[in-house]
């Protein structure tokens, strides 16, 4: 007998896995560094938060879910910051962005 709690947690966890797999496909597929940052910065953060929320739902209210909540807060602050640091240092080192027009010439 599967409880309702486990079904909701499973939904959260597997939708998070879907976002993360899409993010990794995007990193492999997109043409240059600046466009690769988009899936890595957005879909990745969303997937991690969904998975950890699913674990909180599975666990209920306890010391473990407080720890998971700390990890979520940390990821929300850190992931955009790391993305921003990466893009900024690439921009300062003079990396030119890819555009659609160059490909057609």
């Amino acid at each position, binding site marked *: 007998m599967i409880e309702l709690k*486990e079904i909701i*947690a*499973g939904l959260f*966890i*597997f939708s*998070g*896995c879907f976002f*993360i*797999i899409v*993010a*990794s*496909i995007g*990193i*492999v597929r997109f043409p240059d*560094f600046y466009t*690769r*940052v988009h899936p*890595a910065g957005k879909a*990745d953060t969303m997937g*991690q938060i969904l*998975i*950890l929320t699913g*674990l909180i739902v*599975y*666990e209920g209210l306890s010391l*473990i879910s407080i*720890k*998971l909540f*700390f*990890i979520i807060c*940390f*990821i929300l602050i*850190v*992931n955009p*910051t*790391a993305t921003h*640091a*990466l893009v900024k*240092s*690439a921009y*300062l*080192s003079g*990396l030119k962005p890819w555009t659609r027009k160059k490909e057609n010439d």
Partner: protein
Amino acid sequence: MFDTALLLLILSSFLVIYRALKGPRVFDRVLAINFIGTKAVIILALIGFSYERPHFLDIALLYALINFVATIAFLKYRATGKLG
């Protein structure tokens, strides 16, 4: 449930290893390594639930901290040439 999610996450990490090996610029490699590091946090948390040993969460929290510091330290080293 947790084991299937673990397998999916490991699969996505292997997809990104392709980018880390092939990436034309060094930033592509750092992006891929940062991605794999954040996946490692989630994998550690899921392992803790799968084997019912919640102490793995402490390792996950610590790994999240270290992964961020490693990325920033690498970028700073590349921008300025020193870590001080």
